[in-house]
């Protein structure tokens, strides 16, 4: 009898050959490819992507999402289609003075963008420009790459690095307070064939600097398009970042976002994320509180409808004492939609007097919808206040009765409560225009929402 060798069960699946073919073909055309170091870096990252492969659902962080199904297919790099100015302007946020970089399928649309009149010490540039002009600077920033944490290489971060082509580079020097918001508007336009784009956002706030960043990811035409975003936000000591992110993906689009946040001593972050569209949206956040006395607030709402799928993964690392983090996430699933939330708080040994909270409340609005919620704590310090709570339920019958007792009929009351459940998070947006766009989309997604339009 022949012995059958037992092979370890692989948690990853090999990339389709199209990736290697595309990389070979495109690699020399990517911005900054003449810089040897950058070129070498791209190649190592691609090689590592090839050996690692794409995660299957056996990988803990990918438990709820079969990403290979949509991402392990032959795709070209997205082109730069024309967009109507109307389609762009509708999504302007941050007020008339906002500075804006606009991307169409990942390509910086210079003629639509506007980042003039910058004070000294502030840089807002397309990453493609930085890759050409100062590849070493970008490489140095990327070398701080924290994708390689305990959990091993990150397939999509590597893929992003291999095809690194565009995105935003934002730097605010020490002590500079930027009053005018910065908007990064990413428009996705479906193309005839399957395409992908790999933008990278790098934000560095110096000590005591302040900025308000708005990120809008909007689908203006349906089609198979994968956006594989990596974003690095660095908030210096005593600095403050207000961060609004609005995700209004179109049908056929997949969005994979890896967000890495580092905050220094006494730094503050207020982030609000609304996911209100996209066939598959994955938001993964790794936040490190690297100094003491940090305040971090992560707000989020997700509302998949039809057969959409949203997956949130958040890891908060309290590395130093006296930090305060608050996660407030709400989810709604309709029709046959699926949503997942996995949030984990790590409190390191030195992080005494940490206050870390996590709330994840979900509303299941259809028998065929599904929501998974997995809150976790891992605490190595002894003097901490941590709590996490997750709920998943239907509309509150007491509130429904209250509204009906004032005259609203059942449908109106249900619409209003559904809207209100999500709106509570939208109210936390720093920018009113983002809030309004999100509310409009929320109303459009709420059953019976037509009754609610006069609310805005």
């Amino acid at each position, binding site marked *: 009898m022949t012995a059958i060798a037992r092979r370890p069960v692989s948690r990853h699946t090999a990339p389709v050959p199209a990736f290697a073919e595309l990389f070979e073909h495109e690699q020399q055309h990517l911005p900054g490819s003449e810089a040897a170091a950058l070129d070498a870096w791209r190649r190592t990252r691609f090689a590592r992507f090839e050996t690692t492969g794409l995660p299957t659902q056996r990988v803990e962080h990918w438990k709820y999402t079969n990403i290979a199904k949509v991402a392990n297919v032959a795709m070209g790099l997205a082109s730069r289609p024309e967009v109507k100015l109307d389609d762009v302007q509708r999504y302007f946020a941050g007020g008339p003075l906002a500075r804006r970089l606009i991307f169409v399928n990942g390509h910086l649309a210079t003629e639509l963008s506007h980042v003039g009149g910058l004070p000294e010490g502030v840089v807002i540039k397309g990453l493609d420009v930085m890759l050409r002009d100062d590849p070493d600077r970008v490489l140095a920033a990327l070398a701080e790459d924290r994708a390689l944490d305990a959990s091993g290489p990150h397939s999509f971060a590597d893929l992003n690095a291999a095809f690194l082509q565009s995105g935003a580079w934002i730097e605010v020097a020490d002590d500079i307070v930027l009053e005018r918001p910065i908007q990064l508007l990413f428009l996705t336009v479906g193309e005839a064939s399957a395409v992908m784009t790999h933008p990278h956002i790098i934000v560095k706030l110096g000590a005591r600097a302040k900025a308000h960043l708005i990120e809008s990811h909007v689908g203006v035409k349906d089609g198979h398009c994968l956006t594989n975003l990596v974003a690095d936000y660095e908030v210096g000591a005593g600095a403050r970042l207000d961060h609004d992110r609005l995700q209004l993906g179109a049908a056929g689009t997949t969005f994979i976002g890896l967000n890495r946040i580092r905050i220094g001593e006494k730094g503050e972050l207020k982030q609000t994320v609304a996911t209100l569209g996209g066939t598959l949206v994955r938001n993964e956040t790794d936040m490190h509180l690297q100094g003491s006395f940090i305040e971090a607030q992560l707000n989020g709402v997700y509302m998949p409808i039809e057969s959409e799928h949203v997956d949130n993964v958040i890891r908060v690392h309290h590395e130093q004492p006296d930090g305060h983090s608050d996660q407030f996430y709400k989810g709604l699933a309709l029709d046959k939609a699926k949503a997942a939330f996995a949030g984990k708080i790590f409190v390191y040994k030195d992080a005494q007097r940490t206050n870390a909270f996590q709330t994840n409340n979900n509303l299941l609005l259809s028998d065929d919808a599904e929501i998974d919620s997995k809150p976790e704590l891992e605490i190595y310090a002894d003097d901490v206040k941590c709590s996490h709570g997750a709920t998943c339920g239907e509309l509150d019958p007491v509130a429904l009765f209250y509204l009906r007792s004032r005259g609203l009929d059942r449908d109106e009351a249900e619409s*209003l409560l559904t809207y209100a459940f999500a709106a509570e998070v939208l109210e936390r947006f720093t920018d009113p225009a983002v809030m309004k766009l999100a509310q409009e989309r929320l109303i459009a997604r709420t059953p019976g929402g037509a009754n609610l339009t006069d609310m805005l």
Partner: protein
Amino acid sequence: MLTIKDLDVSIAGEDKPVIKGFSLEVKPGEVHAVMGPNGSGKSTLSYVLAGRDGYEVTGGTVTFMGQDLLEMEPEERAAAGIFLAMQYPVEIPGVANSYFLRQAVNALKKARGEPAMSAADFMKKLKAKAEEIGIRPEFLKRDVNAGFSGGEKKRNEILQLAMLEPRLCILDETDSGLDIDALRTVSDGVNALRTPDRAMIVITHYQRLLDYIVPDHVHVMADGKIRKSGGKELALELEEQGYEGLLGRAA
């Protein structure tokens, strides 16, 4: 206007009778005070009248202006003119107070076949009423009852009452949680609504409220039914003797 006859109510699914043979007749223009020890069934009665789920009517009838009230949905009762100011008003984060009120006002108008109120007219009326009741304008923009103090919630109930102009007002312990000045303003607000075609059921533990909202009838409820009825002097007697003194040990 309202006739309750031999009403029996249990908590749904628990087979626990809470209202036991309760009868009451309320005529237009009358104010009835209902007093009674904790757990005697006062809030249950008010919820059953407003149409909240979770109760099972096992006997008796309730007729409101000729209609079988128990057959109606909560919104139909609201349209017919019933309003319950709740003992514990519900917080609705995400819905602005003024928007909610406008929806409610227009829903009632629609149900009654009347034209909707314009946004401008509505705001004018809302601001005037809010001022009368001592609600500062920022409370109109805030989410319904969310983060309101106990007393602020009660005032907000009275604001809704003033805006919705019901035929039958049921006030469930609207006075508890109110400071002395608020008690006065809220009572003034309620008294302003006393008209010959409107009636009120005022549930309270305290005689003090009845100094401001003077009732025509006072009923003492215990163990799910009315044990004693009288004029406004009954409340004073109760204040002196307590439930035990007035009703005997059984209370």
